[in-house]
């Protein structure tokens, strides 16, 4: 059933990419997206064949390797610079991949493994445990921020939150952490030195989209116009003026939801939201029925990341969140993102298939 919803969304994605790129030089991206989806499904089934306990066994090694690849990507000649950020490793033959996407998966496994140990000890999380778990996430976050890729770095945080939440963090500890973060954040905003100028602009634009309609507020304003002008029923496939007129920026990746909203309206958007809701609820059910704590932890890690990305991306399209380059799972164009999502779903399948084992 989960797979069914996923496939429906994948079809929406392919159709919307087709529509959004029809008038551009990116025409035909939907075929590449179908290829990615095919690869993703194969990868999904492949990874579901290996018992997730084996995956947990190699999680530490994989984590170490991930950190190395994130360092490698920062080194000129190895890392490829696209639009000012080193995010890609060239694999030769025109193929390249974005290690930061895969790191997410490894992080989910590593966090599950760590918290499994804590759960097995049967004690509450000590401050030192919280510190270690945080370090596990903060290292890749710091490396990805260096690329710089704030969006992807942010997607690592829900792994930590889910891990701490399920691993037995006490409410009081959570409250202290939040307070500490709030103070740090306040300090950061006060000095204003921790955001790059483009990031500061994005936040300004988010707070006041009309302040600079031709400049930094452009993306968010065009997205709001696209979504809003879609109305209840939408303008129809290939008829979104914002999407087709190239007003909406990158309507096949980060703003694909805005493009979809313009062409299919409130009704279409609600259908998509409903599908995401069903997928997420289904993931939680899988977590509940998992055979052992690591299974639950893995599925909830996937759920947390997916929920986070949906909230940030759709929130951005409707003006509730600032612009961050976080793709919408299953819909945004992009091989690394699609294949990560399907691998993650493959591990979820893996856990589900082995729910009666023990």
């Amino acid at each position, binding site marked *: 059933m989960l797979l069914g919803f996923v496939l429906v969304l994948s079809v929406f994605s392919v159709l919307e990419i087709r529509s959004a790129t029809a008038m551009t030089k990116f025409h035909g991206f939907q075929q590449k997206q179908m290829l990615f989806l095919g690869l993703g499904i194969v990868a999904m089934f492949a990874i579901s064949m290996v018992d997730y306990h084996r995956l947990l066994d190699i999680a530490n090694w994989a984590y170490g390797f991930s950190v190395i690849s994130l360092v490698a990507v920062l080194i000129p000649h190895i890392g490829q610079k696209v639009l000012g950020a080193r995010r890609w490793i060239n694999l030769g033959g025109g193929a390249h991949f974005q290690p930061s996407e895969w790191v997410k998966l490894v992080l989910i496994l590593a966090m599950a493994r760590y918290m499994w140990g804590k*759960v097995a000890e*049967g004690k509450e999380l000590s401050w030192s445990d919280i510190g270690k778990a945080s370090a596990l996430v903060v290292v890749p976050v710091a490396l990805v921020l260096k690329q710089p890729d704030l969006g992807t770095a942010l997607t690592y945080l829900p792994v930590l939150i889910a891990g701490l939440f399920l691993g037995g963090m*006490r409410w009081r500890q959570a409250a202290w952490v939040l307070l500490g973060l709030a103070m740090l954040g306040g300090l950061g905003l006060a000095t204003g030195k921790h955001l790059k100028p483009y990031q500061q602009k994005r936040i300004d634009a988010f707070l006041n989209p009309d302040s600079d309609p031709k400049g930094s507020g452009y993306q968010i304003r065009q997205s*709001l116009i696209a*979504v*809003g002008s879609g109305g209840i029923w939408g303008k129809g496939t290939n008829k979104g*003026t914002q999407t087709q007129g190239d007003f909406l920026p990158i309507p096949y990746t980060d703003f694909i939801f805005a493009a979809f909203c313009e062409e299919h309206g409130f009704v279409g958007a609600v259908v998509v939201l409903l599908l995401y*809701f069903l997928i997420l*609820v289904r993931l939680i059910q899988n977590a509940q029925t998992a055979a052992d704590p690591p299974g639950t932890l893995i599925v909830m890690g996937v759920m947390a990341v997916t929920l986070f990305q949906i909230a940030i991306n759709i*929130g951005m399209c409707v003006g509730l969140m600032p612009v961050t380059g976080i793709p919408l799972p299953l819909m945004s164009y992009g091989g690394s993102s699609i294949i990560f999502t399907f691998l993650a779903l493959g591990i979820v399948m893996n856990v589900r298939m082995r729910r009666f084992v023990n």
Partner: protein
Amino acid sequence: MDTGIGREEKLSAAKLHMTQYVVAAVMLVLGIGLWRLQVLGSDNYKVLAEQNRVRKVPVLAPRGKIFDREGRIIVDNYPSVSCYLLRDQQQKLEADLPLISGGLHIPVDQIEADLKRFQYAPKYQSIPLKQDITPDEQAFIEAHRNELPELETLDEQRRLYPRDGFAAHMIGYVGEISENDLNEEKYAAYSPGDVVGKSGVEEAYDSVLRGVDGSRDVIVNSHGKEVGTLGQEMATPGKDLRLTLDLDLQMAAEKALEGKIGAIVAMDPHTGEILAMVSRPTYDPNEFAVRLTKAYWKSINEDPNHPMMNKALQAQLAPGSTFKVIMTLAGLQENVAQDMHVVCNGGATFYGHFFGCDKHHGSVDIHNALPYSCDTFYYTLAAKLGIDKIAAYGHSVGMGMKTGIDLPDEQVGVMPSEPWKLKTLHDKWYAGDTISVGIGQGFDEATPIQLARALSGIASGGALVRPHVLLPGQISESQQTAIEQTYTGSGAARIPITTENWQTITDDMANVLSPIGTAAEAHLEGVDFAGKTGTADVISGRKKGTADKSTIPNAWFVGMTPRRNPDIVVAVLWEHGYWGNNSAKLAAQVINAYVTKQRSKAGNLMRYASAPKTDGVGQPVAKHEDAPVGLGGSAPATPTGQ
């Protein structure tokens, strides 16, 4: 909170259950966000989306063409292509400049200057790069559509004026409306970028010539590139206009003034229709139609002889002896001149000052004073009349006021008088001032058009007309009224003149061209040619502040045919032309061209023959309704001789 710690509690169903609510809450928030935009705000955003993609593009109305009185074309339009630079989304513009510069033959620094000039304009407003591009340049843009998507072409209609500044002052030129003009009330309906008449007929009749621009609603993408059309409102073309100008006469006048400085204006005194109007030096209005080169503007602007000035309406100079016709009118009407006899010994003394005359004319009376152009006679007459009467007669024939011709920037000239001097020079009038005025010197200033109208008005028995350049019946009454209110002047008027005095003055003017007259050399055999020369001293009459240092007198002549109720009057101003007689010869060329043309028409052979034999038979034709129409020869014109 929870103290009992077991595996079951840590991964309790309650915690997992709770996350379901978190998911539901997130979805609800997103759903509300969508509802807000797509259901509540949808109308507003639909408007914004339309504004985004639909742009109103003007469809320029072709400007009305300009023809002469016989329907021969003077000003035409030609299709032209202009190149614009789109700046939307252009980051790499700097890198493209050398390529653009090479392909369009514009220096890089000029493009950079344009970019700088428009740097504060909205980015979606494209910059005019080059107007009237060549087919080669057009091909360059086509061939580089992909590399240089920022270049855009626009089809326009441009003005094609006669070459070498032919009739340039009368016709004027067009140009982009200036910011100063936009602030003026009469340009309230214009928007920036509009092409507007800047002088001459193009300015005066701009509202008729320009038509009404239409518009097209085009669909554009975010780069401003046009991708489709929604609808359009057709443009109403500007109205073609027929001027009173006669190209044949204009050509003769242009030729006469070739290489000289000055002006010629030819008018039909029955109707006020301007038949020819030339001002020299001239300028090429075609240079103004496309981007004006700095060098050309400099050459025009720094020329001490003011090529842009329409001297026929704007040169305010001492009229010299041409003013004596007005003096004669005043003297006769006041019954002062009839029995006046003056012995000219090369001048006379008035109020302790000696006023010279160029010759010793001996015994002079009203019949030979004008042909001789005897200054001594007119000094004496001026002294007898006094400035008040002279000024009154001057005003009655329109001296010191605009004629009201339907062209911009006409000047008023000066008819000196006591109140005028007090008001302008803050000085009282001295009796000696009157003496100079009597010969058209001193404070006296007139324009060629004023003199043409005044002297022909006297020759027409007192019927002064309002000169105009547009053939009647082409524009609506309200438009006509608007023109008359814009270009105010003394207009049509009657001046008192008895038949007897009328005959005396007109015969006197004819004798100017007789062997005893000052313009004997300009005599045209077999043509009833009358007029008055003027050799105006430039030292007293010249404007201050001009770069023109020449002290050679200005040569004036106002001539007409036939002598009574003339069909044509020609005023010639030749700056530094030495003698009025020189100008008379130029006028004779135009008169001759006119007579030759009229005689070539059937039934007109006798019309301009020499001196009328039946003096006193004719009545002054005061109203122009009675005047011969179209010079067809059928209308009974008075007087007719053979």
